[in-house]
């Protein structure tokens, strides 16, 4: 394959990943590394570098749109970014020291987990929770506009959420993904933050988390301009288009199809990693 063909194909693949990721809300980043390693035979280290770059692009692009709607909570985001950035550094540190087959196996498990998570019904956030002392001290409780007026919420279990966020950051730094799924889990399940607030705040945090590990990847020579260029541009255009076309009815089927794709890629990565081929 010559450079023009390779660039075009990678760009189209990344475009589809970004489009589907944005339409389904599952994030395109998670399928990029398997796409590059399994189909384009790219070394997983280059793939992770390119994926991290595109994660920053989509997160910043989406956050720019969300942040203005007033759902995201800047204080929750900033406090938890302490955990995710330290985690991301730890992940990037790990990535340069463990064999690529181990990274591939972790990636496979992460994909299967994401597929499982996407099939689970979203839990209804409990309302009117009591004020939590630590969360109040950290000024995390907030409010957001809702159909019936302004809705207030009280954040819970800050230490658990903080710990989970460190894990999310480590996964992000190790695998080059946004790990939005784990971030939403920490905020949704542990900290009892309403879904709209947790998804938008998570998106907001992904860019900073990825930036914390991408510096390490850049200086280690994992970020290749020729590969990152089509990935970044493709994902960016795809996810931008995905955010513009909101087809509610078809999203349900798309989610099912996309989660099956994620699961299949997960098994593939697991297999390749265990066989030591990647």
């Amino acid at each position, binding site marked *: *394959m*010559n*450079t*023009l063909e*390779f*660039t075009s194909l990678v760009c189209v693949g990344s475009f589809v990943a970004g489009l589907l990721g944005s339409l389904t809300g599952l994030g395109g980043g998670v399928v990029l590394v398997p796409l590059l390693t399994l189909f384009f*035979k*790219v*070394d997983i*280290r*280059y793939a992770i570098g390119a994926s991290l*770059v595109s994660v*920053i*692009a989509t*997160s*910043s*692009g989406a*956050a*720019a*749109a969300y*942040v*203005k709607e*007033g759902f*995201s909570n*800047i*204080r929750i985001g*900033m*406090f938890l*970014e*302490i955990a995710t*950035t330290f985690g*991301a*550094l730890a992940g*990037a*540190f790990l990535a*340069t020291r463990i064999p690529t087959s181990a990274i591939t196996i972790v990636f496979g498990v992460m994909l299967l987990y994401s597929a499982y998570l996407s099939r689970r019904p979203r839990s209804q956030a409990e309302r009117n929770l009591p004020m939590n002392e630590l969360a109040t001290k*950290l*000024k995390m409780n907030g*409010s957001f506009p809702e159909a019936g007026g302004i809705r207030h919420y009280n954040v819970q279990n800050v230490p658990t959420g903080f710990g989970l966020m460190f894990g999310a950051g480590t996964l992000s730094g190790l695998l080059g993904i946004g790990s939005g799924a784990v971030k939403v889990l920490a905020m949704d399940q542990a900290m009892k933050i309403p879904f709209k607030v947790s998804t938008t705040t998570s998106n907001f945090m992904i*860019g*900073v988390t990825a*930036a*914390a590990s*991408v*510096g*390490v990847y*850049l*200086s*280690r*020579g994992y*970020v*290749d*301009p*020729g590969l*990152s*260029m*089509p990935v*970044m*541009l493709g994902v*960016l255009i795809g996810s931008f288009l995905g955010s513009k076309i909101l087809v509610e009815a078809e999203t349900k089927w798309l989610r099912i199809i996309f989660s099956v794709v994620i699961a299949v890629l997960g098994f593939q990565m697991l297999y390749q990693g265990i066989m030591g081929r990647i």
Partner: protein
Amino acid sequence: MEWLKHWDDQRTENFIGNLLRVGVMLAASVVSFGAILFLHKYWRMPSDYRAFHGEPENFRTLSGIFHEATALHGRGIIQFGLVLLMATPIARVIFSVWAFTAERDRMYVGFTLIVLAVLLYSFLGTGI
């Protein structure tokens, strides 16, 4: 009073939204420009990322990337665009330090500075 504070946060959020948008668009433009130069020159070359070699020094350090970009090398310009992209969240955190300072929220100025320190360490600390 509570509403007033909320509006303050909202204005901060609006500014951050614009900052992120401009950063991403600028980065994407620079990367696209570099892509044209790169593909124009090398489109016939075989493409192979099977084996990991690591990038040369000039694509790994900020000074090297700047040198390559100012020499108008396609790949150098792409890499420079990617660095602009990586700088966007950092600019957002720097702005947040200022915003929390304006709100006299010392605790969050502290938290934000910790995040900023981690980010700068990632880019400037080569010991990891």
